[in-house]
């Protein structure tokens, strides 16, 4: 029991009295609105008290930091031992441009790197492919071959700095380039650390960067998990992501549920396909959440996520290593909460969202820049965003104690409620036969589309408010400086690629691609072949074309 009978009795009495007073007050002054709900439309009560928590069991449901079920955090010492990683997502133009931005961020105190790739790279096309015209370097860095990659990591100590790469369909290729670059720089694979996003299920559900159908896509992911377990032990081979699910318009509960269910799908596949023991690879699984503007909802979502994953790993998968029970996650503030109008307000939003992520116990954080509704961030805007994290860490004192909101009637209740709703979704997807089957049915896609449309309608009706958009609107715009990516870099990048193609040994490229093809057909692990192929200067697209040829191509299903 969490509360003594005496406490509950006292609370019930005073609550009854208070409720009477409320109804008296309401007869004179109406509330501002009838229904109070989170940004995800979860209804919120006027007050929460011990009654809401009376069925909680401290040891089972709460516990201490670093202790199952990890509601209060993975780390025994919280942020006292070490702050979260300040990891700003950066990438634009050519490899040289991005390398320059990285070095600037490291100089300013950033502690990990994070790469944004342009769309041709994300989709497995080379620069200059007819499908990729106009996209080169636009929303990330353009990488075609290992030579580009070597330029990207030039002067970065790969044995000391960890790097996260937001890459999905061609994750095997970019990771192979990272491994090859380490090798060429004399850094052994067991020393490099970082993350590849490598989460295809959320692409089918939300972000729609896809290449091959779901089943072979998951197989490629299992290959990377197996390879990492054997040869690159410090690497997070997957970042199971709710971020994009949320950006596509899901509710917080949907983000929580679909992300965890994706995680279940991956674990099942590795165990089944590779025969690995769950404890051999589970400690390297990582997650990635969105921190949206509804402060408490986000904190509760992250707390619930940790507790749910711990249960999933221990009860569903029978993991024995406590590190397998940990949900380690990166967080990014919500791009979709930012407004084009009155862009300086975005600094405030991001600060609040970052604070929620910290109170939710994130282990790594990206803060969005104020100008990201308009363009890739300028250097100045990125600096403000990074400083926002530093202010939270060093000045506000929120890192002084662990899980400062733990035990709050409201926070614990909302955490429980979100968890219960998320389990319902997970059970529903289990009943459909798993996430791939659910995706084929269009279930998560439709749930998200409905939620996105509902929010938009609430925004239009004024039920939900975005300052500067539907309330406190001003006519004159705040002019902000924006970053422009030169359209000419496409031509330069194509020339560079053509130059590389001329000088490389085509026979070696062909041989390595054939070996990769054979591995794909036989169901072998593609990673060793992929590393050899990138070393021979096979291009990103040449490798992805092998995947497309063997596994088939996925197209956007007719679900709307």
């Amino acid at each position, binding site marked *: 029991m969490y509360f003594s009978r005496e406490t509950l009795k006292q609370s019930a009495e005073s609550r009854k009295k208070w409720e009477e007073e409320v109804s008296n007050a309401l007869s004179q002054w109406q509330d501002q609105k009838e229904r109070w709900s989170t940004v995800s439309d979860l209804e919120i009560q006027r007050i929460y008290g011990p009654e809401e928590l009376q069925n909680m069991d401290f040891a089972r449901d709460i516990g201490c930091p670093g202790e199952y079920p990890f509601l209060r955090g993975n780390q025994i010492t919280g942020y006292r031992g070490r702050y979260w990683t300040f990891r700003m997502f950066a990438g634009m133009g050519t490899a040289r441009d991005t390398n320059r931005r990285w070095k600037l961020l490291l100089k300013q105190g950033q502690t990990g790197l994070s790469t944004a790739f342009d769309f041709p790279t994300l989709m497995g096309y080379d620069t200059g492919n007819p499908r990729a015209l106009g996209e080169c370097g636009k929303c990330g860095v353009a990488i075609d071959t290992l030579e580009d990659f070597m330029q990207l990591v030039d002067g970065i100590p790969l044995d000391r700095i960890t790097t996260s790469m937001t890459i999905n369909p061609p994750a095997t290729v970019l990771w192979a380039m990272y491994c090859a670059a380490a090798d060429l720089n004399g850094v052994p694979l067991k020393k490099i650390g970082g993350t590849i996003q490598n989460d295809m299920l959320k692409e089918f559900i939300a972000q729609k960067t896809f290449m091959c*159908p*779901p*089943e*072979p896509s998951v197989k490629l992911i299992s290959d990377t998990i197996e390879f990492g377990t054997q040869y690159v032990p410090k690497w997070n081979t997957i970042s199971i992501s709710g971020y994009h699910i949320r950006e596509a318009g899901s509710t917080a509960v949907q983000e929580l549920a679909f992300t965890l269910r994706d995680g279940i799908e991956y674990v099942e596949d590795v165990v089944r396909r590779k025969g690995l023991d769950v404890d051999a690879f589970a400690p390297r699984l990582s997650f990635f959440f969105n921190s949206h503007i509804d402060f408490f909802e986000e904190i509760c979502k992250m707390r619930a996520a940790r507790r749910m994953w711990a249960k999933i790993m221990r009860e569903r998968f029978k993991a024995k290593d406590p590190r397998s029970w940990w949900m380690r996650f990166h967080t990014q503030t919500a791009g979709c909460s930012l407004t084009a109008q009155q862009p300086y307000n975005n600094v405030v939003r991001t600060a609040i969202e970052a604070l929620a992520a910290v109170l939710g116990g994130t282990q790594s954080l990206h803060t969005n820049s104020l100008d990201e509704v308009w363009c890739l961030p300028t250097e100045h805007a990125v600096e403000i965003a990074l400083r926002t994290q530093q202010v939270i860490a060093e000045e506000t004192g929120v890192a002084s104690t662990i899980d400062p909101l733990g035990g709050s009637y409201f926070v614990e209740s909302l955490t429980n409620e979100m968890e219960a709703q998320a389990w319902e979704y997970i059970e529903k997807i289990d009943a459909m*036969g798993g996430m791939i089957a659910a995706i*084929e*049915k*269009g279930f998560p896609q439709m749930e998200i589309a409905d939620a996105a449309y509902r929010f938009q309608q609430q925004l239009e009706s004024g039920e939900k408010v975005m300052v500067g958009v539907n309330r406190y609107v001003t006519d004159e715009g705040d002019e902000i400086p924006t970053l422009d990516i030169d359209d000419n870099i496409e031509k330069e990048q194509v020339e560079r690629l053509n130059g590389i193609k001329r000088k490389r040994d085509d026979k070696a490229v062909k041989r390595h691609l054939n070996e990769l093809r054979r591995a794909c057909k036989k169901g072998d692990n593609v990673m060793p072949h992929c590393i050899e192929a990138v070393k021979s200067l096979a291009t990103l697209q040449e490798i992805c074309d092998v995947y497309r040829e063997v*596994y*088939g191509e996925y*197209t*956007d*299903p*007719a*679900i*709307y």
Partner: protein
Amino acid sequence: MKEADKIRKGDVRTATRLIRNIEDSIPEAKTAIKHLFPFTGRAHVVGLTGAPGAGKSTLIDSLISRYRKMNKTIGALLVDPTSPFTGGAILGDRIRLQRHAEDPQVFVRSLATRGALGGLSKAAGDAIHVMDAMGKDLVFVETVGTGQQEVEVMNHVHTVVVVMIPGMGDDIQAIKAGILEVADIFVINKADREGAGRLYQELMHMLDMAGTFAGGWRPPIISVDTMFKPELFHEGVEELSTKIDEHYENLVSKNLLGSRLRRKVMAELNEALQSSILTPILRKIIDSGEMESLIEKLIKKETDPYTCAEEIAKKYLR
């Protein structure tokens, strides 16, 4: 007539606008169809119907690829429901066929069901004529086989393919009864799923009960694996296209095309009569307020539907 000539030369803009005019009931559209009618009858018209999510568009997409390899030209008519509340519609089946968008020999047109008075079947029938007159070798028609309107659309095709997937619960019951009766080919799509065997048994049983078949054509049941197993999927599609061709050949060789055409022209005549006689009368009695007062009277049992109809016929059909 210039419009008809342009369409016969394959002009997409003119053809698609004529289909639009038919949907919108522009009177001149009838004249254009009159001019085109003599030049129709060449195309093999294939209807695919089945519940939402059964994978019809994916099958059409693959069938198009296959027939394009044989150098056949293609028309595809995709029917999606109109929202009964707003009159609008989202027509998204095209997504699956977008890789053929750039092929000038493939003409894809989406059609909304509109309201009951919109005459979906008539519009679809005429749209098929337009594609036929353009010289398309094959015309595919896709509908969600759950409404009466869609059943009627199938009267306009030569070969009816009913697409089903296992695990929909009430598999056979989900399909409108009228469609099962006109089915020429059954497809069990995503046949690697649980329940495929049972669905197959149910269909076999249903066909066994039917006993005899016109022209000796017992509808075959084709299993198609999920598209995520490309090789098996393509085998299934190949078998389907072979059966589609065989069915047409059977119609021709057994002299049954005639009876199919009878069904088709009867439907067309029926719809033409509706649009020329019934629809204008309905419009008149709605616009004049007569409909409302008749409804009132009927509710109060002051009259009966037959008497109403006879009075209306007397008044408007002289």
